[in-house]
């Protein structure tokens, strides 16, 4: 009996890296997108300095979503090809 430890390790590492990376990238993209929304008056963050300007937020969102698409697309490409 031979256990394909190599393949198992590949599955573990690839899923861990790709899965967590996609979650993180989408989260960051949404943080960027929410910089475009003005803070509600009287809310907990009313008057707080924005961490990102709306323009920078949009740029972050585009970059992160683009990277996500690349990861997902590359994964599908490997499976199909």
């Amino acid at each position: 009996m031979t256990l394909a430890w190599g393949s198992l390790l590949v599955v573990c590492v690839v899923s861990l890296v790709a899965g967590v990376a996609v979650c993180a990238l989408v989260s960051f993209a949404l943080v960027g997108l929410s910089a475009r929304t003005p803070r509600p008056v009287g809310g907990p963050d009313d008057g707080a300095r924005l961490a990102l300007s709306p323009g920078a937020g949009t740029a972050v969102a585009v970059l992160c979503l683009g990277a996500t698409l690349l990861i997902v697309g590359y994964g599908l490409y490997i499976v199909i090809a």
Partner: protein
Amino acid sequence: MDVSVIVVVVVVTALIFDFTNGFHDTANAMATSIATGALSPKVAVLVAGVLNLVGAFLSVEVARTVSSGLVDETRITPVVIFAGLVGAIVWNLLTWLLGLPSSSSHALFGGLIGASIVAAGTGAVHFGAVLSKVVVPAVISPVLAGVVALLGTYIAYRSTARADKGTITRGFRAGQIVSASMVALAHGTNDAQKTMGIITLTLITAGVLAPDSGPPFWVILAAGLAIAIGTYVGGWRIIRTLGKRVSDIETPQGFAAETASTAVILASSHLGFALSTTQVATGAIFGAGAGRRLASVRWGVAGQMAVAWILTLPAAALVGAAAAWVASTGTFGTVIVAVVGVAVAAGIYAASRRRPITADNVNEVPTPAAAAEPVAAGR
């Protein structure tokens, strides 16, 4: 029994199994999306069905594992495979009635292994391959998916804590539509393959195909269609369990769970590991629940599932073995197995009509008491 007749019977039985596999597993892809409202129930099952069909065409690695690795194809007959399939179908229907997300894959392998042992002895089963390609991935994959989902959920909540709530919720809801679709696609690359593998194995044992052949095109198409239709019908009982009873799922968690499931399933499909998509999806949902708040996971439900998981392979093996024992007495025995199988299926269906769960009430959990004691509720 005439070889061609039994081959047709086995192919049809395999497609019936594929159908039960589909509706048993709709929940894997769509439970959290339906629970969070990202997709309406009807749209969700339609998307899942179509993408399962697409996924079936993407990869045949797992089909090869099933058809040329687990049992010695030179020593079993189509009747043995038929008996194994009956075992798998009966167990699948029983767990569906109880709303338990057990593994269709393990039911299939269990049925096949049990039937092979009775018909041809323990030597007919490649236990090494079973251990390395089925059992070890079965232990590792749900934990792996859980860890990925836990980390993903944690990062999602931490990084977006101070961001605009409306944007976050809408964003993850949109993300969930994509991630759920990816799970359905991945499901097709793994689960539709199992039936393809079984049909290919049957054709090999009947001498229609050469040993070590891959699945012919009509087999891929038929298996893909069967699982797609099954998925579209929707296993609402299991969707309710996964979407509502494991934990209260919010959109970021649903997204993280589905992303984790997709990553694990696709990677495994590509390397030919026939893992249980059900266990992966369930592990991911528990991980996502724990990633937000450990106490929000209903660990009692997890306990029930764990028991069902451990029981699945041996229980299906027992049914498969019994069916093989009866079927081995000849044509009459095979007919008896078929009749009993149909009777059991009809009985389970009749029982399910007493308290039907449909697209309309899938998100309603009756009372906390009933949710805490689902099996004891006399279904």
